[in-house]
């Protein structure tokens, strides 16, 4: 039924993830960022939440629960509130599992899902973004050409999370102008994983360039088989997920700046007593809520089985714009201190830039 408040179960999920995040990354996010690494046990503990496999049928190693886009965005917001790099890394197998679960053939499910729905975290990923000006996941430059019983993929990908560890990845490529996803094993000779990328944000998240050169895959590894998959819906689901993460990053910045400003005294008074600071915080408060509401709207429509092209697109666009604004305010409110890496707001600011630029770093 229509409503704006969380159910008991949803509150529980949110609380549980939030508790886990607090224990796991809240204190170490800075260190992880500086070290450019997320410790394996941190990822493993997050994996044990089971969020990525909850809707996978039990026979394939999942929990057989109903698909819930709303719960997914609740989880993603909390994870990203802790740290965006962590959120992407810990859920990256979903980028592989989710499309196979929802759009794969029976054989694909049987063959691939059990590999990545185990008790221990096993990396799988998605190669979607492309490293050229005007990149657009809806008009891919990477191509897949039919050749007998296989497809030959050519193209370059970037920002592929965990590509170095992933046993398999989904590669987005166009077949005669029609967007598709292909299951590619890491040991495919046509696949070269490049140097680890150095990015503006998410230092702790290992991402890679990936080259596909005459990379041949069996026709059975085209997602959805001969019919292909609903690539558009897949992109829409990742857009909703990006918006949910943006709500987490923006909220983190807002809350930190708010507490700081309450305690920071200049000219004899806490700086929050000045409207120019207080009003920025007010704006941050409702923009965080707006980002979340936009994500919720799209997720609700997804849950209802409606066409989400508009709502998912607007949600991500809004989230990209407003997460940038909110995290910018977060730095500004803290002045010079906001510019220093000891404080998290500069990291939120860097990470937020990724929301509009990157596609498909998470999925609901």
């Amino acid at each position: 039924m229509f409503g704006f408040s969380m159910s008991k179960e949803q509150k529980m999920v949110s609380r549980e993830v939030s508790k886990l995040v607090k224990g796991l990354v809240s204190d170490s996010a800075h260190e992880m960022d500086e070290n450019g690494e997320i410790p394996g046990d941190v990822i493993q503990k997050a994996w044990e939440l089971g969020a990525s496999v909850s809707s996978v049928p039990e026979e394939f190693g999942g929990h057989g629960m109903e698909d819930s886009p709303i719960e997914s965005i609740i989880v993603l917001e909390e994870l990203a509130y802790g740290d965006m790099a962590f959120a992407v890394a810990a859920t990256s197998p979903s980028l592989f599992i989710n499309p196979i679960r929802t759009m794969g053939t029976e054989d694909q499910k049987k063959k691939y899902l059990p590999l990545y729905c185990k008790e221990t975290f096993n990396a799988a990923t998605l190669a979607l973004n492309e490293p050229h000006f005007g990149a657009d996941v809806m008009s891919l430059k990477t191509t897949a050409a039919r050749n007998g019983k296989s497809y030959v993929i050519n193209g370059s990908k970037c920002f592929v999370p965990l590509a170095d560890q992933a046993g398999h990845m989904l590669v987005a490529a166009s077949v005669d102008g029609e967007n598709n996803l292909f299951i590619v094993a890491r040991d495919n000779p046509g696949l070269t994983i490049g140097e680890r990328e150095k990015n503006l944000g998410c230092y702790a998240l290992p991402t890679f360039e990936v080259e596909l050169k005459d990379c041949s895959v069996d026709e059975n590894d085209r997602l959805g088989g001969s019919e292909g998959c609903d690539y558009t819906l897949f992109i829409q689901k990742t857009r909703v997920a990006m918006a949910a993460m943006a709500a987490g990053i923006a909220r983190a910045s807002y809350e930190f700046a708010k507490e700081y400003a309450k305690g920071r005294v200049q000219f004899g008074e806490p700086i929050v007593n000045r409207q120019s600071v207080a009003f920025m915080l007010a704006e941050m408060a409702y923009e965080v809520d707006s980002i979340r509401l936009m994500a919720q709207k799209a997720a609700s429509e997804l849950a209802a089985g409606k066409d989400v092209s508009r709502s998912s697109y607007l949600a991500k666009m809004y989230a990209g714009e407003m997460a940038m604004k909110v995290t910018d305010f977060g730095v500004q409110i803290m002045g010079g201190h906001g510019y220093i890496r000891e404080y998290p707001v500069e990291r939120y600011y860097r990470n937020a830039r990724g929301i509009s630029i990157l596609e498909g770093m998470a999925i609901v």
Partner: protein
Amino acid sequence: MINIDTPEKIDKMKNGLNNLAKGMLRPIARKYDEAEHEYPQELEVFRSMSVMGKKPKKNGDESKAKPVDDGEFKVGQNLGTVVSVEEMCWGDAALLLSLPNAGLGNAAIAAVATEEQLERFGSKWASMAITEPSSGSDSGSIQASAELDGEEWVLNGEKIFVTCADRCDVAVVWARVKGVEGSSAIKSFIVEKGTPGFKLEHLEHKLGIRASDTGTFVLNNCRIPKTNLLGGDSEKKKKTEGFKGVMKTFDNTRPMVAAMAVGVARAAIDFTREKMEEAGIKIDYSANPNNVSSVLKEFYMMEANLEAMRLLTWRAAWMADNEEENTLEASMSKAKAGRYGTLITQKCCELLGPMGYSRKYLAEKWMRDSKIMDIFEGTGQIQHLIIARNILKLTRNELK
């Protein structure tokens, strides 16, 4: 459970109201923008409808809007109102403000009047007179006075910018009771037109919402019955007492003004979309927003902001229906919608070019109309002040 997919019931309601707005308000929008202050007779048919605000309650409980949880979704009173207001303002905001018996005073009366007052004034058109020449945002500083003299209150003062000043039957006038200090001295009184000493001084000429009759009242030793104190004398036992009670109605009326901003902005966006499509620009919500034309990108962002405005508004209204404290969310909706409604209507005019500047079309009117939504019922700044005090837990002395 979070589920904000628009229910079919609301979609149906929107469609019905949209037809009404399209058929009855749009066609006369320009006419009454030009015939400033002239009463739109065409609106008489709405007199008995409660398009805006609550119907006067009979025995108190009838207006309890909390949806019963019988598994079936019911559109609560406040949510229903903001949905209606958006559609009507899509038709025309100034005409919505001119609907008979749907003044702001009506909302206050519906919320806090006594049985006897409901009987006497429930079916009257009521305006709300708070603002004074030297007291706008700081409504606690009003100087109009009320003094009890036997069985009558004697009112003195000047009230400006009163919506429906000309057309209303009664005004809910805020005044300070003589001899009492502080904000608890402020009470509201129901003053009937025709009472000696109560005079409509003049009507204003405005930037927008010109069909709405905004005017000034002067109260000069105006005597009204003792029983016209809104909410009655025995207000102590009520939780919605006096000043606080009326302030509380802002939690319902602010989302309503936010919904007005949504309606006007949507009108502008819809018109812009129509013209874009006529020009062959395809709107498809898929390409990277940085790869589309500047017009399209601006358009998408306006649509996203409109959606956010609406969601904040619906949330505030839904919370009121579910008896959740919503002061913060009400102000959030108005802060966002007031500001972005203004920006959207400006931008639509810009994108429309000549069609946005010409009075042949309504876009220029929407830009003028929209601006008021960031001013009345508390300016944008005042909404930010309320939000900031709320989230920072600061008193009005700490954050001025």
